[in-house]
């Protein structure tokens, strides 16, 4: 095994893993804390990518800035989706079968609409940091990957502060533990869940912009991420943001080593292997409750 290659693979894996953490953050909130199996999350990420792409091409604005401007819109989208979900499924107690089918339909419709609007060609954005590479002796750090990594960490830190320090954040943690008790404390659990779901979809705007910086995007790219994000979320432990970050870095590194030494076409199998092993041996994940 080539040492230089190994070090570079590990570093690239850590950087990509940081990006995976941003992709998974939304699922960690919706699936991990609210028990909403939002399999449409990757589709919203792709939607974020395409919005960043359009604005970037038309107006030349940096994709990350676009995504920050889009945060309120994505929050509102999440808010609206949760209202429909609550009225149609959660309230009737039919979330397991029909709620899942609902999100599957949303995933599918989003993808087909993007295909109809933009076709299946790969799209990419332009920014100053796409292209140059920082080199330290034998270690290469492409800015294209380093920038998403740093933005992901910032997003993750902000989320962790929000969840652990603010009243609303703590209420979200509380709703994930005991919804009835929260109502007794005179906080409306449905409102808290709506806010939390809005926040989880808002993260998709940022993750989408980071994705299209990292790689060219076409509408069905999101599907690759479904298995990966749920694997990371389960491996990290449901409802634990620090666990999610560790799991994301771990899967990033293992995928990167697999891609370097066995070929990139094998990398998608890694996350599934992790998912099955976690489910079989430690269903509560690394830092699970």
């Amino acid at each position, binding site marked *: 095994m080539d040492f230089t290659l190994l070090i570079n693979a590990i570093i690239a894996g850590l950087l990509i893993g940081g990006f995976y953490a941003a992709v998974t953050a939304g699922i960690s909130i919706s*699936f991990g804390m609210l028990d909403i*199996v939002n*399999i449409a999350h990757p589709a919203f990420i792709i939607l974020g990518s395409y919005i960043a792409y359009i604005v970037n091409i038309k107006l030349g604005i940096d994709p990350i800035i676009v995504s920050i401007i889009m945060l309120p819109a994505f929050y509102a989208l999440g808010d609206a989706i949760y209202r*429909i979900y609550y009225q*149609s*499924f959660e309230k*009737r107690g*039919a979330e*397991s*079968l*029909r709620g*899942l*089918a*609902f999100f*599957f*339909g*949303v995933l*599918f*419709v989003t*993808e*087909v*609409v993007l*295909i*109809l609007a933009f076709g299946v060609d790969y799209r990419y954005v332009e920014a100053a940091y796409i292209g140059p590479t920082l080199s330290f002796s034998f270690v290469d750090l492409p800015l294209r990957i380093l920038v998403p990594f740093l933005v992901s960490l910032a997003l993750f830190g902000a989320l962790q502060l929000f969840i652990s320090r603010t009243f609303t954040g703590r209420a979200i943690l509380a709703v994930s533990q005991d919804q009835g008790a929260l109502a007794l404390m005179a906080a409306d659990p449905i409102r808290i869940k709506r806010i939390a779901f809005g926040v989880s979809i808002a993260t998709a705007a940022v993750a989408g912009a980071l994705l299209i910086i990292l790689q060219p995007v076409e509408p*069905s790219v999101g*599907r*690759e991420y*479904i*298995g990966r994000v*749920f*694997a990371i979320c*389960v491996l990290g432990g449901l409802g634990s943001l620090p666990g999610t970050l560790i799991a994301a870095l771990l899967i990033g590194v293992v995928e990167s080593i697999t891609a370097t030494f066995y*070929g990139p*076409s*094998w990398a*998608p*199998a890694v*996350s*599934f*292997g992790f*998912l*099955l092993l976690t*489910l*079989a041996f430690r*269903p509560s994940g690394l830092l699970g409750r």
Partner: protein
Amino acid sequence: MPTFILVAFLVATVVFVLLSLPGIEYLFVAGYIVVQYVVLATAWNILGGYTGYVNFGSAAFFAIGAYSSVALITFGTQLEDLLPESLASPLSLIFPLPIPVLILVSGAVSGLVGFGMGYLTLRLRGAFFAIATLALAVVLQTLVVNWDFVGGSSGAYVVRPSDFYGLTGYIQYLFGLMLALAVGAISVARAIERSRLGYGFAAIRDDELAAEASGAPTLRLKLIATTLSGALMGMAGAPFPYYIGFLQPQSAFGLEYAVNSIAMPMIGGTMSWIGPLIGAILLGTLQQVANVTISSAVNLLIVGLLLIGFVIVAPNGIVGLVQERLRARRTK
């Protein structure tokens, strides 16, 4: 029960005769896909509708069936290269295997995969099974893309055998097989509904904890459901390489299988065998027509929107709507 199978076979025969009357081969080409969806939707419903566990990986099970066939067909054509002479010559008498044998083998393989998936995930919360099936599709596609024996990412050509047992053409033979498979799948689904097994499934769907507490062997029941459902999906995929002639991973793992096999039972109604049948015939025919007249992307959009609309507005599907209407009339 035997009367039901007899009637179902009669109906299937009538369908076959009616389709061959105009003498248009395309009717069989399109009809094959519709009947294939009847099998897939019925298979999905045995797990999804009866026990309430959602399988997003129908495409994976379908593809396992299709690729099991491709592997066996390719194996048959390369007997001399793969095996010593003493083994190859007796085997060359039975290869190429007839399609019904391929269907059985494919059913066994995908049933086994269904069992394994269920064993790993069904002891946990229900959502884990759904997520694992989603991931399964991606990983199996990775394996197939990397497996050169069955054509890898570039795909595999399949040469149709020359004999088709006295029927007028090969597509008629494939259509007839799929029709028989559909009759079989529906009979199985209907038999389950009226048996102890079906009541056990329904108990799991309504309240798994209560079912467990009253002594229903929930894990064993769920494993029976995943195995049966997976096996039927694989069987539906087995003749597909012969139908399509050239099988690529993208076509075998197409998202439309996953979407349709969920949308059809949901739109028809998940509570009984007739729901998936109605859903598959309606949606399948609609898509075949839309495919020719509009475009394939638009018709997938229609399916997605119908799925969302039905789960929100009519949770029990068309069958549920009809039952409500009848009940309302009776009380008037």
